[in-house]
């Protein structure tokens, strides 16, 4: 399985979830596990470029596919990805646990709608739970991310 452009073999148990594989077998602990039933969105990663829940996919299902996690969207030490940068500027994270999932979902949203309407933003982030921010700052961040991405 290719994760963040790095290939490695999958040798884990068949029942291992992709989320656990990424976190514990690949050490990519930025993908968080919040509910393991697909509701919270903390574990969202890009699967062949599209955001999906990694807790609802088996690790083995990733074989032959390309996975991108939060660690793979900006060069280490380099500038933040526009979506990350927007989250920072807009105070769109507090505890930071849901944040990687939101960032991955927003990347998907902006790919679909580079200039999202308010309604598209609302729908685009509506599959992720955040218990800290009340979402106001996340909405602002999505708008800001669209601006930054356009630059």
């Amino acid at each position: 399985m290719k994760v963040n452009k790095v290939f490695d073999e999958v040798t884990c148990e068949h029942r291992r979830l992709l989320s656990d594989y990424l976190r514990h077998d690949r050490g990519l602990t930025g993908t968080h596990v919040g509910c393991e039933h697909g509701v919270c969105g903390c574990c969202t990663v890009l699967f062949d470029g599209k955001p999906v829940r990694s807790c609802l996919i088996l690790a083995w299902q990733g074989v032959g596919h390309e996975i991108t996690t939060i660690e793979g969207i900006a060069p280490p030490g380099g500038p933040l990805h526009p979506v990350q940068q927007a989250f920072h500027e807009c105070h769109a994270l507090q505890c930071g646990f849901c944040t990687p999932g939101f960032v991955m979902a927003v990347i998907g949203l902006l790919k679909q709608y580079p200039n999202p309407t308010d309604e598209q933003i609302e729908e685009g982030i509506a599959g992720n739970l955040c218990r800290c921010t009340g979402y106001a700052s996340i909405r602002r961040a999505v708008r800001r991310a669209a601006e930054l991405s356009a630059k």
Partner: protein
Amino acid sequence: MTTRWFGERVQRAEDDRLLRGKGRFTDDIDDGALESVLVRSPYAHARIRSIDVSAARNLDGVVAVYTAQDLPFGGTDLPILIPHPNLTHGRTQKCLASERVRYAGEAVAFVVAETRAIAEDAAELVEVDYDQLPVVITPEVAARAEHLVHDDVPGNVAAEMTQEKGDVEAALKAAPRRKHLRFRYERGAASPMEGRAVWSRWSSEERKLTVYDSTQSPTSIRGGLAVLFGLPESQVDVIAPDVGGGFGPKIMLFYPDELLVPYAAMQLGRPVKWTEDRQEHFTAVNQERGQVHEVEVGFDDEGRVLALDDDFIHDGGAYTPYGIILPIITAGQLPGPYRVPNYRVRFRDVYTNATPTSPYRGAGRPHACFVMERTLDAIAAELGLDRAEVRRRNLIQPDEFPYDVGVGWQDGNTVIYDSGDYPKLLETAIATLGPKPAGDRVGMGLGMYVEGTGVGPYEGAHVQVLVSGKVVAATGIPSQGQAHATVWAQVVADELGVDVRDVEITSGDTRRFPWGVGTFASRGAVTAGNAMHVAARMVAEKAKKIAADHLEADAADLELAGGAVRVKGSPQRGIPLAAVAVLSNPVRYAFGGGTEVATQFTPKARPGPPLADGEEPGLEATGYFSPAGSAWASGCHAAWLRVDPTTFRLEILKYVVVHDCGKVINPLVVEGQIEGGVAQGIGGAFYERLAYDPDGQLRNASFMEFLMPYATEIPRIEIEHIETPSPLNPLGVKGVGEAGVIPVGAVIASGIEDALGIAINEMPLSPLKLYELSTSASTSTSTR
């Protein structure tokens, strides 16, 4: 020019790491740790006949299985965190139950295995023979005491307390008008996005226990573990790393896993980790809010409250590990910002066969606020008065501070409001809310609250200027997202005259700061914030003293600014702080930093030893802050909302928050706290509830059925700040962590009542509930 960071919208220092996926949450820590699972009781009340773990122990990949009899502390009752004389029948659970379970989710056995999946397989093989007992669910059923949760607790009453100010009987008798009201608030859950987790390692070589714990109080965990395992505290390190939200339940200690994981790590000689899953979080983690109130209010024809008599039952759950702080807060805060000349409050904290309770954001206040605000709305309705006007007539005025409410507070003193401007809150909220939007079934919601924040006893901080000129500072309390690393840096940077980016904060790590209490009760900014201020000021004084010797100036003429100590009025005469740090140590090191600069300054010759009496090496200091009393934050929320009369869907058209948390350190952070708090309030008012059936089974233990709001359910929130500084701490701050959530239930109820014209006396609501209330209201109207 001196830059002041206090009050600025400084962007957060902690973001970069978290945004890159480089945060460090407890479950992120591995180091070859074994994984574990708790076997939990499926029944709410049962006698345990036997536990057979042999099949589980024999499963491949299982390393150990523990029951109570395997633990040296297996027979010990877990501690009562905050004892109280009125808690006459306090009861706590054992780490692992072996005779009796009193809530579904109570831990019975602990399985350690190579992976969590194997541990779960093994947990299914643990055979527990239960003898089911009658279940007590809901405060009303508990108070009837047809069955007992604890055989030796008569009436299921853990604690009873009555307090009175004035003469309520007489005042009620004399009141021109009286009203009896009944209010009910159901349990809710904090549900942080990260569940709880504990990781531990024992080093037999160093005789050192290291524990990572998603706790809100690492210092207390450390103290308890040291005693339990007979180790000096210096041999126990407890670290709360990044914590994915707390909101109260993570302040509870000890949860069984907090003992079992370190114990197993010591026994097995390998790191052990336990990470809670979402399903068990619903029953294993403390909950809150269940209360039933009976209110008798006496008032005059102008709507002024003359007497208030409240008798309430608090659903304590199966045990009272946290004491009775919740009903005490409810009792103390019920009168809110209003003058209640005669006030009597009695409560009973009762046992039920449900998960124990301890504070969840708001901690006793949302229900208190709901009761008072609903009572005022009822008075307004009865008198045909405007609801804001009734509040106006009852508010405590700005010249009445300090104001003694006359009943007891959680710190043992009475409730004394230190400062505030309640009329201004109300008027600003009404003005900001603006006129009623067009449309059918639109109602106005209104709610005011006070919040005693920043309770003691104390917090401390250590601040040090490094020879690089950078500043490191640490406090004992951990962060669960409150931006401690940013706001403490602002406080410290101001005192030391450095750039906020040059201050690095560590919090919640006993290796860096071993003393402290915890992050809860909206106390971080008040206690640790002021401790940072105190310690930084001590460092500043020390820096001036050292610099004075070298600049041949009077310390009183010096200031810290621009990263240097310099003479006021002649900024070119100064020493970089880095150099002062070097000079602070009579032994010099050769490497870089301020060393070279420091060589330019020859210390003035002085008699006596190089380190004089009372002097300490290093440009550092440890300071503490212990508040004399709570700093009382306050606020007013107002909303326009609409209920669809056919589907009973709720639409919040406009939501306004006016709040006063004293001096604001960082508006960005304060607004975030409020927005998040309101969202949790809306969740708790209209979406979330913990639905226990009469058998004590939680019927909605998943995010599919426990309906935490998504973005689509939360409206935009308009926030106005009012600042009345607290006179009780040097920074003039008040806490803000819980403020957002407190009045939301009251506001939503008030608005829905206004929109639909049906009485709302309970929380939470839902379309189903509104449908039923509307149907029964129209039925009873038609039969009248």
